[in-house]
């Protein structure tokens, strides 16, 4: 080879840019998720980010629509016996797994069986289950020992873990506490395992043989039509970088921009900004009911009375009042079940009354160990407000500034605060989970079995049982009023306000829905 030929060839190779044609670029949607997709088993790991990715890859039997009603998804239809004990389900025809095998009733039975031990509603169903069997390829039967009116809701809810349908060989061959290693989906997109770089990138491709339902897509229900060929999740830990990448057109859709950067996004005419999830989130001041001082109801009431949700919300999301509101109850505002029954104390914001209640409680200056995760902007902001509030109330604050990994470990300890335990921590609950008691773990008050803090309040539990047994919406409403009243009176936890967040996308992207998770069906890019 001549020297010049060699140099020209080498130069051409070195300088070649991987130019994507405009068409190819339009068929690839680049999405910045809220967090890293560190694992991909939606039953084993129940983080929201795993659920969000899994929803594109695995389908569900039912899907919750934007009215929070479960609609048939993989199921063609169902019948329930008059006594409510026997349910017969029929799968719709044409359902395929990504390996080309048909979705059969035995796959569904295995998937439900793997899901049940990991899900609170699944555990309840499991406790009253008589049998769950595949009758034929498209028909499965569920026999219960007592009626469970919320069965369809359980199979279609968006709260984690969702009941995703996997092949029998994977679901039955893997325990619910063991991670799956084969990602054969039943949904509209395939997961490209070979391109997965945990912490950096995850790639999904349109599954051409997926058969969507007829009708209009609404959240997890309806036709899941994928309008791009390829979906790339680009993990960006730094919000400023994600903002710059979106403005520069390097990514198309950012799931959770921080509120500080919203004005910057709004100034860019190529970028659209809107509320991500109308169901928002509820901030939580979670107390340890096992040990002083918060094992004392009056101390909990003192905090609840003195607490200003507005202070928390301004610290959390700023002065944009479209983004937050003050709660008078524990359920998601704007939904049919929301109630403020007995909720006056939540809005009291009365420091003097709080001090009085604290004095009446006999509080003996025990240290209040506040576990505050500094690596989560939301918990950090809430922690700073709490430290100030408790000090003004006259409490002895021991502020433990740490990271979320440590809070996650320490909050599981039931020891007294002086022996490695804790008094309070902050978190938040997705509004989709707090719509009703179905998936609202944080509101349960069944002592040892309850969520961290272990409240034991039989009246709250009685209300929850009434809700699960409620035959109609009126009865559900009565039960939720009761739960709210008792939860406020006994302070299961102290809500710190209701807040929403934004999402942002390039204006050449259309079809983005507002909802509790990013729905990729119906989203197109020009």
């Amino acid at each position: 080879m001549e020297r010049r030929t060699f140099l020209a060839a080498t130069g051409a190779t070195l300088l070649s840019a991987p130019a994507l044609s405009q068409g190819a670029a339009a068929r690839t949607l680049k999405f910045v998720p809220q967090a890293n997709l560190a694992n991909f088993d939606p039953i084993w790991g129940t983080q929201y980010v795993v659920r969000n990715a899994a929803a594109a890859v695995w389908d569900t039997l039912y899907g919750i629509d934007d009215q929070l009603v479960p609609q048939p998804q993989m199921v063609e239809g169902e019948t329930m016996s008059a006594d409510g004990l026997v349910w017969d389900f029929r799968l719709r025809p044409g359902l395929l797994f990504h390996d080309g095998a048909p979705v059969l009733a035995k796959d569904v039975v295995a998937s439900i069986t793997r899901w049940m031990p990991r899900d609170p509603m699944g555990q309840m169903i499991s406790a009253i289950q008589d049998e769950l069997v595949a009758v034929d390829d498209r028909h499965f039967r569920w026999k219960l020992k007592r009626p469970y009116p919320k069965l369809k809701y359980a199979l279609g809810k968006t709260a984690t873990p969702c009941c995703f349908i996997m092949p029998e060989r994977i679901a039955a061959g893997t325990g619910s506490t063991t991670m799956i290693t084969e990602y054969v989906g039943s949904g509209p997109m395939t997961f490209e395992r070979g391109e997965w770089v945990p912490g950096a990138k995850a790639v999904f491709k349109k599954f051409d043989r997926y058969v969507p339902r007829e009708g209009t897509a609404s959240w997890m229900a309806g036709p899941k039509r994928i309008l791009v060929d390829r979906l790339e999740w680009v993990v960006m830990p730094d919000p400023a970088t994600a903002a710059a990448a979106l403005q520069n057109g390097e990514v198309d859709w950012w799931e959770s921009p921080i509120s500080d950067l919203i004005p910057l996004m709004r100034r860019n005419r190529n970028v659209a900004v809107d509320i991500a999830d109308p169901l928002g989130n509820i901030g939580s001041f979670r107390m340890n009911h096992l040990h002083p001082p918060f094992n004392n109801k009056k101390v909990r009431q003192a905090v609840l009375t003195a607490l200003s949700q507005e202070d928390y919300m301004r610290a959390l999301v700023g002065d944009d009042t479209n983004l937050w509101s003050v709660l008078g109850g524990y359920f998601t505002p704007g939904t049919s079940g929301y109630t403020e029954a007995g909720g006056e104390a939540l809005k009291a914001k009365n420091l003097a009354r709080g001090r009085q209640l604290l004095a009446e409680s006999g509080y003996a200056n025990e240290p209040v160990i506040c576990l505050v995760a500094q690596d989560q902007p939301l918990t950090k902001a809430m922690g700073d407000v709490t430290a100030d509030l408790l000090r003004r109330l006259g409490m002895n604050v021991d502020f433990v500034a740490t990271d979320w990994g440590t809070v996650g470990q320490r909050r599981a300890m039931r020891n007294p605060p002086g022996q490695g335990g804790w008094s309070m921590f902050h978190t938040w609950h997705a509004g989709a989970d707090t719509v009703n008691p179905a998936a609202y773990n944080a509101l349960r008050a069944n002592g040892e079995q309850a969520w961290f803090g272990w409240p034991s309040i039989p009246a709250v539990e009685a209300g929850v049982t009434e809700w699960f047994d409620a035959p109609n919406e009126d009865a559900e409403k009565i039960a939720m009023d009761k739960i709210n009243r008792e939860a406020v009176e006994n302070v299961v936890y102290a809500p710190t306000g209701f807040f929403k967040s934004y999402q942002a996308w390039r204006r050449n992207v259309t079809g983005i829905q507002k909802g509790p998770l990013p729905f990729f069906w119906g989203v197109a890019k020009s």
Partner: protein
Amino acid sequence: MFAYVVRRVLATIPVMGLVALFVFSLLYLAPGDPAAVIAGDQATPQDVERIRASLGLDRPYLVRFGEWFFRILQGDLGLSIFTNLPVTTMIAQRIEPTLSLMILTLILAISIAVPMGVIAAWKQGTLIDRAVMGFAVLGFSVPVFVVGYVLAYIFALELDWLPVQGYTPFARGFVPWLQNLILPAIALGGVYIALIARITRATMLEVLQQDYIRTARAKGANQSSILFLHALKNAAVPIVTVIGIGIALLIGGAVVTESVFAIPGLGRLTVDAILRRDYPVIQGVVLLFSFVYVLVNLAIDLAYTLFDPRIRY
């Protein structure tokens, strides 16, 4: 010399063993629980406990360390708790971007800092000297992430010359590779340039006072040959030492730089693993970094012989 290299390489084995023991113990004692992170915020304590047991995190320290160390001896770094992928695979996925960033930063830094230091020493007390030293102070003072944001704002958002984030593998072409890395390399290289420039200047000032420099001048040698042949070669040993020490600085800086520019490298892998308490990944990456550092020190020790023939091993 060969015997020395063999001795040094063999000496890395006990060093790595100690590092392994130290890292494992530190992680065992550190607070935090991967099971709680896996289970998610809404999980019940029972869920967390089940996951902890399934991961074997409830077993005694010695059993866990023994198993891990035995696997290490076989070259198996284990599986990530979170992804279930082999740690070696995860490291392999991430090593190219970090290596690229560090090499480009090294090339940039050395090719800028050494001439800067030499010129500052030559023009001691002048405006040039003060400008170089001012830059050095600035390089030390401004954090990497600030430089990164400013560069991204100017060259990506305002001028639209370069991408804000990401990494393109070298196999897809030199230009796209360079486009993605040039801003991170400049941002990361700032401190490094400052460090090398200052040391070069100080060492050169000392060397330029030596008798043999006066002799060279008396012989009529021109300025550039005095500076770069006579003086710089004799000043090289401390400069090379600083370059070696600075590699640790680069490893630390890469963590921040990779986050700011969303480069999928080992730095981000480390931070993610620490935040999630993904013990096998943390242990694997720290072992790798320690090994690299030991090798770099060996390479620098060997490089001394090139610059100073009096040094013998």
